[in-house]
C-alpha cells in the first residue's frame, strides 16, 4: 500500500461525487454504470454492484487488486465489470480513472453496433477521444466476452461503445474521463442530427423531423 489514508479518503469522495455527477448530468440511468479510480500501480477503488449512486457512501467503495481483480477488501462487493477497469489500468499506465456508463446518445451507436467515424470530429474531439470510436464485440454483462471485446475496442483509444450495452471511457484522472464521456455524447448527438438532415433532405435538424422520419419508415 503506497498511498496515505488521507489520499484514499479524498479519492473515495471523488468516486462518490462522480457517481452523483453522472446521474445529474443524465449520463446514466438508475444503477447502470460503474467507475474506477487508481490508487497506485496495484490497486484501484471501484463502485460496488447493485447500489444507486445517490445511496452510495465513500466507504462503500471496495479496494480491488489491479493484478488480480478477484481480490478485494474494505468496502461492499465490487462491480462485476471490474475486470475491464483492471485490465486497462494494468496495461495502460497513463490511465488513472475509468467510467463505464449507458448515456443516451452513446447507447444509440452501441445498439446499432455502428462505429463513430473520426471524420465527424473536430481536431480537439479527435485528440480527446483518441480517434474513431469502435464497437466492442457483444457479450452478456460481467462475461469474459464483454471484457475482451471492450479491451480490443479500446486499443489506442480513450473511448469505445460496448455492443447493446453502453460506453467505456478512460482518462488520466476522473475529470478527464468526464470530459471524454461528455465529448462522446456531444459528437454522437451531432452526428445523428447530421444523418437525420441527410436522410430527410431538410435544411435543418429538429426532433420532430426525426420523429416523422421514424413514423413514416417504421410505423404501422
Amino acid at each position, binding site marked *: 500500500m503506497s498511498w496515505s489514508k488521507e489520499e484514499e479518503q479524498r479519492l473515495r469522495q471523488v468516486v462518490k461525487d462522480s457517481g452523483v455527477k453522472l446521474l445529474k448530468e*443524465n449520463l446514466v*440511468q*438508475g*444503477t*447502470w454504470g460503474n467507475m474506477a479510480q487508481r490508487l497506485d500501480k496495484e490497486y484501484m477503488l471501484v463502485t460496488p*454492484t*447493485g*447500489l*444507486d449512486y445517490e*445511496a452510495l457512501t465513500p466507504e462503500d467503495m471496495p479496494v480491488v487488486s489491479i493484478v488480480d481483480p478477484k481480490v478485494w477488501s474494505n468496502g461492499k462487493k465490487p462491480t462485476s465489470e471490474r475486470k475491464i477497469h483492471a485490465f486497462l489500468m494494468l496495461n495502460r499506465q497513463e490511465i488513472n480513472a475509468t467510467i463505464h456508463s*449507458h448515456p*443516451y*446518445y452513446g*447507447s*444509440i*451507436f*452501441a*445498439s*446499432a*453496433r*455502428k462505429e463513430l467515424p473520426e471524420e465527424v470530429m473536430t481536431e480537439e474531439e479527435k485528440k480527446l477521444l483518441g480517434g474513431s470510436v469502435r464497437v466492442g464485440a*457483444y457479450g*452478456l*454483462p460481467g462475461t469474459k466476452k464483454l471484457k475482451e471485446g471492450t479491451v480490443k475496442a479500446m486499443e489506442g483509444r480513450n473511448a469505445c461503445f460496448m*455492443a*447493446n*450495452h*453502453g460506453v467505456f471511457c478512460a482518462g488520466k484522472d476522473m475529470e478527464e474521463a468526464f470530459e471524454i464521456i461528455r465529448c462522446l455524447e456531444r459528437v454522437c448527438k451531432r452526428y*445523428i442530427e447530421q*444523418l*437525420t438532415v*441527410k*436522410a430527410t433532405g431538410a435544411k435543418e435538424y429538429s*426532433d420532430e423531423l*426525426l*420523429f416523422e*422520419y*421514424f*413514423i413514416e*419508415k*417504421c*410505423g*404501422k
Partner: protein
Amino acid sequence: MNEKLKDSVSMYFDRLREYGLHGNGDSVSVRAEGGMYFVDNTREVKFIPAGKADGEAALHEGIYAATDAQAVVHAHPDYVNAVSKAGVTIPAVIDDMAQIVGPTCRTANDAAAAAKELKKRNSCLIKEDGAVTTGRTLNEAFTCMMVLQKAAICLVSGSVLGGNVVINGLEARLMRFVYKKKYSKINTENNLEREGK
C-alpha cells in the same frame, strides 16, 4: 396519512420534469392501505380510496386491481411518444432495457388494454398516449420509464443509422430474470424504506 409516502409521490412526479421525461397528461401514484396516493399536473397529491378513482386516476386504479404493482408512472417523454404514435413494439435493443423493462414493450390501444398488458410486464405504450410503467417501488417504476425512453431514443435514432441489432430473446429473458431475482434486490429494499413503505 403517510406523509413520507405522499412526499415520495410528489418527488418522483417532479423528477419526470428534472430528467426530461415529462409531457401533457403525466401522473404518478403509489399503492397505499385502502387506496393510493396520486398526483397529476395539478401537483396536488391526493389520497384516493379504492373504487373511487375517475379520469386519469382510474387508469392507475385499473392497474392496481389487475396486478401486484406498488407504483405506477404514466408519462409522455418525446421519444416514447413517437414510438407510441408509430404503434410499434420496442424490442430489447439495449441490455438495460432487457433487465429493467423486459424483453419487449408493446403498444396497447387504450387504458383497459394497458392494464391487461401489465399483468405480465411492467411497461407498455398506449397508442398516442405515452407509456405506463410499474414497479415494486416508485424508484423502480421511474427508472423503468427512464430506461424505456432510452430504448425509444435508440430505436428512433437508430433508424437513421440503418437500424438496431436486437438482443437474442433467450438472453434478454435471462438478463431480466437475473435483474429481478438478484441485482435489483438491495436497491428495492433500500427504496422501500426511503419512500415510506
